[in-house]
């Protein structure tokens, strides 16, 4: 590929298909742009009541009493619930798709039982005839608190004398429970080689510490739910979620009901990014519905979203890397402490798996700590844990390159992971595109373009995310007009209706427009795991491929029946059935579809998959910035994102993911943080003050899609939803360093932080 051939949005394709790789219009496009798509807040039905949630004003307190009598006496109030309305789950542990979790943690996060652990923690809820009445009734609930000191960062919470959030939380160390009561819920370690020997053989060692802030996913649509607890004891929930089956299973577990009694209909979803996997208000609305006898809808405010739902962890990281003078990486050590928020489950495990994933280093030790603090219980956020880790590692890698006088991409190329590289956590990488991504960065004209002017700098960084497989199901029915109806269980966040439909279309030789995809409720399709882990195009796509193959086989048999031959006498090519006997007999898919009703049974294809062969994705950024040395403001001049998509099923949606992930990474880098006061109150719980980037803050994000086919998928697809958020903070830190010569160790790198670093460099004393 010559330099001249690069365009603002490039696809470095390695294989062509008839449908896959093209850019058809999205099937849900008209509904979305006309406002006809039904989102959760649009749900309405006869007798609907409106719910509201009372939340703790304190970050850490014991609940002495809750008096709901005055609220219950309110004439428009139909129901009031607290945590005691739930069945006591005891010590029961459940696996709800995000690993093993104590059910009591989930239940107590949904409605606090005896302690509130963060400001915004839900305490009680009310259902009333109007939202106004519900909000008024909340003021009538009297909660008596016994205030406790909050602890807000991982390093503080790890101190021996730190206030304890959970008096019964005992640390697990190296996979085994200990007797130590602590805010550290888990300590794990990965080891590879001999770390001491590795550092002893290094010519240069760089060691730095970093902090990253708590950051929210910032989905535009707030959480919402409508629940109807019917007279037959069946519960129907309409909700905005990434995982309708997760909501079903979690709600059923909390309410102590069989999953078959809970049906979840996923409405359209206005963003999630991992934050709409956990359950918050669905069981509460269900309880309110049961008590009131009415359907109940709850819609969170923006402040409730920011203060009461799971952001991504803040973290404290220490990175030490040793290299030979020629740049060969010899040893790397990481110490990662991630804030889980109120309940265990920080994303430090994947952070530890990704922290050195881009490099083939013979000697590695990684220690990770999962630490509870008095902030909202954290949730997944796009490559959870990896962005924090890459900010630290990629900053150190750039410092090494600078100190050795080696081009930073050459240093990365020299040490890049490849097929067969053994990861620090054990397994060898299968076919991956790390080298190819870095090579594309090196070859891109952005990298060699002149960058002139004072206080301007260029930075690079790379990142990695594993991606997930997990179960998906799909049904396909053939219609007499030659179209197919495709039913799936994956809520469509990034255009996945179309990317899944295209894969079925490719198998059946149809244009994508002849596929009608639907996302249905949990009673209407087989179990399908969350829309998360960049898994839908890969895994639900595979289910669609298998269901389409099932249809194709049945169609071949039907053609054979019509022609009076055995099915192996029929051949299917590009949407046309051919008789193999040398005659001219042929039928198009549509012609055969029109004969189905008169020649046999309806044709319905089905598939359930839980596929191995997940392809991890590497990504990279080149970014140019200008730093205002008077104010510390960072202006992004040019930004190019690179990512290995395996095969871009729908390149526009891959580009959209890359651009979206880049913008979110830029938000982490330059602006976003939970600004907490000493009492643990978030001081910026609105989108005016919680500053996410807008189009006015950004240049066009150019994209380069690299295609290193994933051997685990028939078309080579890899998940693309997450790896793109990983490198931006590090790339921007390196660009700022290149511009004004300050090493940034903290996110966000807002004007205050940048000016602080500049003043420190210049020797200012205060």
């Amino acid at each position, binding site marked *: 590929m010559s330099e001249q051939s690069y365009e603002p949005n490039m696809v470095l394709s390695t294989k062509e298909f008839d449908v896959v790789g093209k850019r058809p219009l999205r099937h849900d496009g008209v509904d979305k742009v006309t406002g006809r798509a039904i989102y959760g807040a649009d749900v309405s039905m006869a007798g609907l009541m409106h719910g509201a949630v009372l939340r703790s004003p304190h970050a850490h307190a014991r609940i002495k009493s809750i008096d709901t009598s005055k609220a219950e006496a309110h004439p428009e109030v139909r129901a009031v619930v607290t945590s005691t309305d739930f069945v006591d789950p005891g010590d029961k542990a459940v*696996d709800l798709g995000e*690993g093993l979790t104590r059910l009591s943690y989930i239940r107590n996060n949904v409605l606090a039982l005896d302690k509130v652990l963060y400001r915004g923690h839900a305490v009680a809820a009310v259902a009333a005839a109007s939202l106004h009445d519900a909000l008024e009734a909340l003021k009538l609930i009297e909660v008596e608190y016994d205030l406790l000191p909050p602890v807000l960062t991982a390093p503080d919470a790890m101190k021996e004398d730190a206030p304890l959030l959970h008096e019964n939380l005992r640390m697990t160390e190296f996979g085994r429970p200990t007797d130590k009561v602590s805010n550290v819920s888990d300590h794990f370690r990965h*080891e590879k080689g001999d770390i001491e020997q590795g550092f002893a053989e290094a010519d240069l060692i760089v060691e730095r510490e970093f902090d990253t802030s708590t950051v929210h996913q910032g989905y535009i649509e707030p959480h919402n739910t409508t629940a109807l607890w019917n007279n037959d004891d069946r519960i129907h929930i309409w909700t905005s979620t990434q995982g309708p089956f997760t909501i079903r299973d979690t709600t059923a577990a909390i309410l102590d009901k069989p999953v078959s009694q809970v049906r979840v209909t996923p409405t359209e979803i206005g963003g999630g990014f*991992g934050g709409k*996997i956990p359950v918050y208000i669905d069981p509460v609305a269900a309880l309110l519905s049961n008590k009131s006898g009415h359907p109940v809808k709850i819609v969170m405010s923006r402040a409730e979203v920011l203060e009461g739902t799971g952001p991504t962890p803040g973290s404290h990281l220490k990175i030490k890397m040793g290299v030979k003078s020629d740049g060969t990486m010899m040893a790397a050590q990481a110490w990662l402490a991630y804030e889980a928020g109120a309940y265990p489950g920080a994303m430090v495990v994947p952070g530890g798996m990704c922290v050195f994933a881009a490099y083939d280093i013979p000697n590695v030790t990684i220690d990770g700590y999962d630490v509870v603090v008095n902030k909202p219980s954290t949730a997944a956020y796009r490559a959870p844990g990896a962005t924090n880790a890459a900010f630290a590692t990629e900053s150190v890698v750039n410092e090494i390159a600078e100190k050795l006088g080696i081009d930073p991409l050459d240093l990365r190329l020299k040490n890049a992971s490849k097929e067969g590289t053994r990861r620090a956590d054990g397994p060898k990488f*299968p076919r991956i595109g790390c080298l190819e991504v870095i090579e594309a960065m090196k070859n891109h004209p952005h990298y060699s373009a002149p960058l002139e002017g004072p206080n301007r700098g260029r930075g690079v960084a790379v990142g990695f995310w594993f991606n997930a497989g997990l179960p998906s199901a799909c049904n396909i029915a053939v219609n007499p007009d030659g179209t197919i109806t495709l039913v799936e269980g994956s809520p469509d966040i990034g255009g996945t209706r179309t990317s899944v439909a295209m894969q079925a279309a490719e198998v059946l030789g149809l244009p994508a427009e002849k596929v009608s995809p639907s996302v249905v409720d949990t009673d209407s399709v087989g179990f399908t795991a969350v829309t998360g882990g960049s898994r839908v195009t890969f895994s639900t796509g595979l289910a669609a491929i298998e269901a389409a193959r099932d249809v194709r086989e049945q169609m071949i048999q039907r053609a054979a029946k019509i022609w009076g031959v055995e099915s192996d006498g029929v051949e299917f090519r590009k949407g046309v059935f051919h008789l193999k006997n040398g005659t001219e007999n042929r039928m198009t898919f549509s012609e055969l579809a029109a004969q189905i009703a008169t020649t046999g049974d309806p044709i319905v294809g089905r598939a359930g998959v839980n596929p191995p062969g997940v392809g991890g994705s590497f990504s990279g950024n080149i970014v140019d910035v200008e730093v205002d040395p008077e104010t510390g403001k960072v202006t992004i001049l040019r930004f190019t994102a690179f990512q290995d998509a395996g095969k871009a099923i729908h390149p526009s949606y891959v580009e959209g993911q890359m651009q979206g992930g880049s913008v979110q990474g830029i938000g982490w880098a330059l602006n976003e943080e939970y600004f907490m006061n000493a009492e643990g109150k978030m001081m910026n719980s609105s989108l005016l003050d919680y500053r996410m980037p807008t189009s006015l803050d950004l240049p066009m994000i150019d994209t380069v899609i690299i295609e290193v086919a994933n051997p685990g998928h028939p078309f080579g697809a890899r998940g693309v*939803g997450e790896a793109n958020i990983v490198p931006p903070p590090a790339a921007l830190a390196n660009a700022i360093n290149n511009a004004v010569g300050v090493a940034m160790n903290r996110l966000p790198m807002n004007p205050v932080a940048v000016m602080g670093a500049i003043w420190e460099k210049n020797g200012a004393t205060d």
Partner: protein
Amino acid sequence: MPIVFIPAAMKELTAGAAEIRVGGSTVREAVAELEAAYPGIRDWLFEDNRLKPNIAVAVDGVVSPIGLLQHVDENSEVHFVAAISGG
């Protein structure tokens, strides 16, 4: 015989051994052999007679969706890794 890689956290159970060759044609059988030689391994990996939900099995670098039922052959590499999904 497949080779089982012992995570750092489990090495105290294997007297420091990092790689152990065992018999068996599935991961379950391989774990049974490991347990016979190094008691305690099973407790580390299992809960309620199943692999703990936060642990996944990777055979030859590929995380297996069927875990303990995964076939292993003579040259397979077996790893116990963290089960992760994403956002």
